[in-house]
Each structure stands twice: as C-alpha cells, then as structure tokens.
C-alpha cells in the first residue's frame, strides 16, 4: 500500500520561507484532512507534494524512497494526482476531452469510467460535447474533481473540493470521498468546510504559519481548541 511521508519540509517562494516545517503522512487506505486558516500553507503543501515547488530542506518520501524534486509529470506517474483549487480545467477542450486527459495516464476513458463519474456528477452528463470554458464555475469544479478521480491514483490531493458547489453536490462529494479508501485510493484533503473535512477524514493535521502543529483523529481535532481557534475563532488569518 502506498505511503507518503513529509518530514520537516521547508519551501521558499519569492525570497520568503512559506513552509517552515511540514511533517505528515498519508496512506492509500485513509482520508487525511489538512486543516488551517487562510494562508497557513495548505495549498503550498499540496503543490510541493505534486512537484510544483521544490523543498530546500526536509524529505518527501513515497513508499520509503526520497522523491524530493521529482517533476510534476513523474509524480503523477507514481500514482499521486492533484486537483488544485480554483477550477482548473482545459477551457478550450470539451468536457469529454478533459475527462480523457484524466484517464490518459493509465489508458483510455472506458464507458465504465464515464458512468462512474457521471453517477457522481450527473450535471456533466448533458455537457460532454461542450467546451469546458462555457461551464459555470461550479460545473468546472465538478469537472476538475472528476478528472482527478479518473487518473485512478493511489493518492489523491484534493484542494477545496466543495468550493462553489451547491449544498446537494457537496453532500454527494463528501460521500464519494469517503468511499475512495475502500477503492484503494488515499486522499489528502484541504477543505475550508471543516465539518465536511472532519466528517469524511479518519484523521488530520492542523497547519499554522507554514507548520503542521497538531495531529489527531477526526474526533480529537473536532474537539481541539487549536482547530476551533483556526476555523471558528474568527479574525482574519
């Protein structure tokens, strides 16, 4: 089973250190939540894992092997898919072509694949031939998640999957994420909707100022004062 570990990872961007000390682990059989305020470094952590930023200190290990500095396309080949925040889709391609791009890493888009993601996002069904650029913001978000799922990775990095989605769809996505470990897919989940995150995750980490400061089961984190302060305490980050 896949196991990803980060130990003391530090990342510098534009002259400033943005990740000071990030340590966490996630396996292919669990949903792990990464919590924290705005600007705590959660998205940067996901981008670092997927090879978009290179750490200047610390280690990223995949199944025990150090993979610091692996190029993004090779990270995907090793079974880690990233669904970044902000609805990143290929706007000039059709919805079906976007989905094919997701399946590309392991072959063709089969009709079983298609049924599976359309079961999750029926709204995309009538849009398959349309350019992704004409979809609404929420539909683009569904497409981005669907594309990530189709790569059938061993580990899925999900950045704010509920962003801009209707409550009913958020429910469905929550349920779908919860089922992924049973299908052999681990998830590292960044989510501002803490209730959703702690509902579907078995455990998680809290980040503040570029550091992972607390670790615990979903239940422990739900009761944690630090988490309450970060999510519910109010006040800008």
């Amino acid at each position: 089973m896949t196991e990803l570990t980060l130990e003391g990872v530090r990342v510098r961007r534009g002259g400033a250190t943005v990740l000071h000390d990030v340590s966490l682990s996630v396996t292919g059989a669990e949903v792990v939540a990464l919590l924290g305020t705005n600007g705590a470094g959660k998205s940067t952590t996901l981008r670092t894992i997927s090879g978009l930023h290179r750490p200047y200190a610390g280690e990223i290990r995949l199944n025990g092997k150090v993979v610091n500095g692996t190029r993004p396309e090779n990270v995907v080949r090793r079974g880690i898919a990233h669904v970044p925040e902000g609805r990143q889709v290929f706007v000039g391609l059709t919805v079906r072509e976007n989905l094919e791009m997701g399946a590309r890493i392991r072959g063709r888009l089969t009709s079983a694949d298609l049924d599976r993601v359309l079961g999750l996002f029926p709204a995309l069904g009538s849009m398959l031939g349309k350019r992704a650029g004409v979809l609404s913001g929420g539909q683009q978000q569904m497409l981005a998640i669907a594309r990530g799922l189709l790569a059938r990775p061993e580990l899925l990095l999900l950045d704010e999957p509920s962003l801009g989605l209707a409550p009913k769809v958020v429910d469905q996505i929550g349920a779908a994420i919860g089922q992924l470990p049973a299908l052999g897919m681990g998830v590292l989940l960044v989510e501002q909707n803490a209730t959703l995150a702690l509902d579907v995750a078995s455990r998680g980490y809290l980040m503040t100022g570029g550091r992972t400061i607390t670790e615990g089961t979903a239940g422990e984190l739900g009761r944690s004062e630090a988490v309450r302060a970060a999510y519910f305490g109010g006040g800008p980050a």
Partner: protein
Amino acid sequence: MTTGLRRLPPWLGILALCLVVLLVPDESTQNTLTVGLIWALWAASLNITWGYGGQFSMAQVALGGVSAYVFVILATRSGWPVFLAIVAGIVSAAVVSVVIGYMCLRLSGFRFAIMTLAFALAGVGLASSMEITGRTTGISAPGPWPTLRIGPLTWDLNGTDGGFTLLLLVVFLLLTGGMWLVLRTRQGRALLAVREDQLLAESVGVAARRYRVLAFVLGAVAAGVAGVCQAQYYQFIYPSLFSFSTLVTVIVVLVLGGRGLLFGPLVGGLLYALLTNTLHIGGQFEQMIFGAAIILLTVFARHGLTYYLSAAVRLVLPRPPAEPVRAEPGPLAPRGGGLTDAALLEISGLTKAFGGVRAVDDVSFTVGSAAVVGVIGPNGAGKTSLFNLVSGFVRPDAGEVRWEGRAITGLPAFERSRRGLVRTFQRPRTFPALTVRENLVIAAEGRPAHPGADPVEQIVATFGLAELADRPASALSYGDAKRLGVALAVATGARMVLLDEPAAGLNTGDVELLRRDLLELRKAGCSVLLIEHHMELVLDVCDEIVVLDAGRVIAQGTPAEVSAHPDVIDAYLGSAR
C-alpha cells in the same frame, strides 16, 4: 513586473553618472551615448503603451516614422520653421494614433498586435511609393538645428561637443518625468489598473477603453519625439528606417532594460548601444556574441536589468520603513441614498441565450434599498450569467434592468459601477502587480468625498487587510484574494454590491466576519445581491431569496419560505437543508 511608482530616487545617482559621461569629449563614447539615447526614446514610447498600458503595439516605430516624415517635409519643402515642424510631426503621430486606436482597441492581445502591425506595414508601403516621401530612396533632413541662446548661455543643439546628446538626455528625462507624474495621478493609476485586469477595472468604475486609447496616444507622442530625433541624427530618412527590424530592436531594448520600469528604456538603450558599438570583433562573431548576450540576459534577468540594478541600489541605500498607518474599522458608508421604500434595482424579463442554451430565462425581481437578497440555485443555474447581465458585462437578448428608476440596460459596466452598482467576481480578480493598498486606492478613486478618516485605511482595517496591505495582490491566498474582492467593491462606495460567492474558500471564522460585514453594509444603507452556496450564511443574512434553476426563477420568498419549498429541496438543497 513592478509598478515603478516609487523608484525614482535611487536613479538620481545613475543620472548624475550620465551627465559626467556627457562631459567626456571622447567621440566614440559620445556616439554610443547618442545611439543609446535614441533607442531609449523608442523604447520609452513602447514602454508607455505596452509596459504601462499593457497593449503590445507593433505600430510604435511606424508612428515615429509619421512624425519624422511630417517634420522633414514641412521643414524642407514647405519652409516651416524647424521647431514648428517638429511640433507638427509629433501632433500628426498623435492624430494618426487616435484613428488607429479607435479601430484597433476593441481587440486585445495578439489580434491587437497584428492589427497594429498591419497599419505599420501599410505605412511603410505608403512611404515607399509616394513622391513626396522620396519613395524608397528617402529624403534629407533640414540640416543643423539652430543654436539656443538663453541669456549668456548658448546651447549648440547639434553639438560636436555633446550638445545633441545632452538634448536627447533632456528629452528622455522630460518624457520619463512626465510619465512619473502621470503615474501619480488618478489617471495614471487607472492606466495601471486596466493593464492589470481590464474587467476588474471596469467593475470599479474605470472607463477602460478610454484609458487604452490614452496609453496608445501617449505612446505615440513619445514615438513622435523619437522619430524626429532619429531623423535629425541620421540627417536622412527612408522607409526601412521605420520598418519591422527597427521595431524588433526596440522590443529587445525594452525587454532587456525592464518593461514597466521608468528607467528600463534608458538602461536597455545604453546597454544595446554599448554592445553594438563596442563589440567590433567583426562579421558573424559580432552577431553571435550579441545574440548570446541577449539570450543570457533574457534567461537570467527576466524582469529586465533595471529591476536588478534598482534592487542592488536599495540593498546599499535601504529606504526607511514607511510609518504604519493606523485606522479604526470605519463605517462602510455608501453614497447618500439612505433608506427609501422605492426599489433600487428592478429586473424584468431578463433573458440571455448562449449557443441555444437559455442561461437566463425571463428573470424578474426587484431589490430595495438596504436589502440583502440571495440568489441560489444548482451549479449552472445561471446565477453568474444573471450577474453579468445586471452589472453590464454582457448584453441581454431581452428584458430590462432599471436602477433608481431609470433604464440602464444599455449602459456599459463602468458607468453602472460609477452609479453605485458594483459587482465582484466568482474567481477572485485583483490587480496582481499592485499592492493590496494600491488596489483599494484605485477602487476608492470614484468614491464620493466623505469627511473623516482616509476611506482606504478604514477599509483595510474593516476587512482585516492591515498585515497584507503592502504585499502584491498576486501573493494573496485564495481566501484573502476573495476578501480583497469584496473590499474593492465596498471601497467604491457602492449603493449595491453584487457578491459572487464571497464565502467560497473562507473558513468558518472568516465567514462569520463576512456575515458581520454584510449586516454592517445593510445598516449603512447599502444593498447586497448575494450569490452563495453557504446556506447558513444565506438563510441568516438575506431578507429575501431568489432561487434559479436552468435559468428560470423557480421560487422566491423569505428564507423560511424558500428553504421549505419542495422544488428547492429537490433541485438544490438535498439533505443539507
């Protein structure tokens, strides 16, 4: 790219250096400086249109050619006094640019570049075929310029002793100083706003098209100056002097020196002249070394040399840290208005189809003053399309939008914003290269004057942006950029803000702050039209909710009515009600 707003002082040293070099009576140094300054003038022209205006114009050199030809023809054939002919030349370049500007400025990006290139090529073709321009052979310039006498001082403008070079430097400084002044005005900031994000600029009330024309015309004036100087330097002009290859060199000079930086053109021009004038190795080697130098600089100094030079100067001469401005969170006071029963916004029968799909289908509702109205519905229901129609970014196929009792269906977005109807965007938009505070200054520009504390600082405090105020907006996290978006709309002093998913990407604590701000806005008499999926927030703050599905209104009423409506539960809420 940096704004160049605060970059002048360190450069006084460099200028002093230039003046010292000018006094060196070495002919080869003199020549390098002269050629460098002419390139700097050309690049300054492109810097205005492209670096500050954000429009990649390929007509810059041709516009300079217009000026050069008019100057030479008037001075030699029509016998105009030299200085009058110079002015006429520069004015002609400006006039031609207005004509081209209005024809091309609907286009953007590459289409704009290609259209301007087409005009440039046509211009060179015209000059090559007319008798009066001497066809491809060209025509001679009017000869030496007169000597200036100011009291006991004389200034030989042709100067073998550097008089012409000094003139070029003075002209460059006047142009750059002028641009420096423009950038400190409201118009200058609007110019940068349009460069950074045209849609956002329009949404906060900037007449983007007018500023694009302005950038084009100011650039043409500078090109006119460069054209005249070029003609005087060569004493002879011919069409290929203003052709594509000259344009390419100007682009290289600007990119090397630093686009969007006041002294980028000077550094680029001098460097280019130095490379071409001193590398006399001969033949292909010269070209190769020159090419290699450009490749190295482009790879390792991608912001342009000036950027790194000024960073180095600031290391040696650090600027004292700015005094932190403290302000209390202020009232989010909108423009007058106050509480009335009359509807502020009336939408009737609004319809828009995209490629056969009716994104918005016969939607009608009204929003009163100081009311918070929610717009909810499944993804793809047409909520953002409705915002696009109401805010003037998209024209409806049918229906009407009335604001304060008057039809505004035909008004452009920036006009609606100026009247107090301001929208935010679902994907956060900011002016990325500008700081958070500069972003807010631009948005607050159209705000009615209000006695008391600085509205920008109040907004910074109210929205909790103090720690981020001096960071470029490009460095903000998604949630912070989202918050800045709402702050920008409020900073305009809007009477109604249209917020497109303001809570998306915010954590619970920040949503709580947003809730407080929305209620505060209503208390201050500002209405809110709110697209949001965060149902707790919507049910809590909205006086009324409109539910869209497949472009149509399927329910409308109080939060209690809407959340119990079976169609709404079925289409939208699911178990989350």
